[in-house]
């Protein structure tokens, strides 16, 4: 908790990635065949449901199912546990992917630095 802040501001200021800036490495670098993320809910569906922009991500189809379930089962607010769990799990996986992207960027930066150090030493 906060080790990345220490790395960013104190110990490894050049290599620790800044999430505000664009990541510089090619997404396919190091992967044989990287699969694209699939968007299941269509723009038209999201527009009809009037989803706010922050919720129009790659888990929107689960959210739409949850909203439909809630509307169908009102006033039983305890009814949609399964749908809610599905949506939550999808969001969790999305967050884990974000963490992995950050870590990938960090390791690639360190690798780049190592290569440059070797080139200089040689």
């Amino acid at each position: 908790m906060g080790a990345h802040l220490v790395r960013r501001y104190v110990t490894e200021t050049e290599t620790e990635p800044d999430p505000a800036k664009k990541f510089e490495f090619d997404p396919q670098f190091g992967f044989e065949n990287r699969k694209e993320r699939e968007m299941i809910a269509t723009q038209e569906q999201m527009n009809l449901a009037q989803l706010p922009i922050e919720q129009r991500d790659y888990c929107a189809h689960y959210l739409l199912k949850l909203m439909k379930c809630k509307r169908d089962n009102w006033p039983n607010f305890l009814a949609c546990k399964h749908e809610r769990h599905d949506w939550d799990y999808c969001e969790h996986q999305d967050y884990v992917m974000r963490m992995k992207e950050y870590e990938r960027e960090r390791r690639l930066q360190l690798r780049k630095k190592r290569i440059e150090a070797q080139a200089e030493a040689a």
Partner: protein
Amino acid sequence: MRNTTSVRQQQPVNMAGVGFRRWAQALSKGKGSGISALLSGSRAASSASKDSLPGPYPKTPEERAAAAKKYNMRVEDYEPLPDNGEGYGDYPKLPDRSQHERDPWYQWDHPDLRRNWGEPIHWHFDMYIRNRVDTSPSPVSWSTMCKQLFGFIGFMLFMFYVGEKCPSYQPVAPKQYPFNNLYLERGGDPEKEPEDVKNYEI
């Protein structure tokens, strides 16, 4: 006109007449001024004679003694206000302390004013009543208060500055959105081609 009271006889006395006569005598002898004397036959306590009002600045020791006596003060305690043209006259210089500083538990004659009868009144007594200006000492000295307040404010400003320069964040990449980062939903021009954004699984 002679009345029945001067005659020592066993005759009934007209008491109303007695009262009227006494009133008329008192009136003719009375030293009072104006309406109050006319109605009561004696002086009202609120009207002051010349010797109880403030006078000119005292120059000789005798004048000082007389002024001190006038204000119910000891001669050692009496100090007139400075004679600098502001028109104080011989009014005494009393300490600039408000009534908040006086003992709350002592049995004052006027408890709300914390003052006894006959006590000399400060020039600015109306400012120093307990509803108004309070000169009682603060729990800590002025310098300590200043240091603590400005120290705290300075520290907070410094920490906010540090937070701007080195913000805290979670070690995650930015969130990925579909449809070229929601180009149309964010108000992008439908005619123009958006910048291509591809998101991959990891």
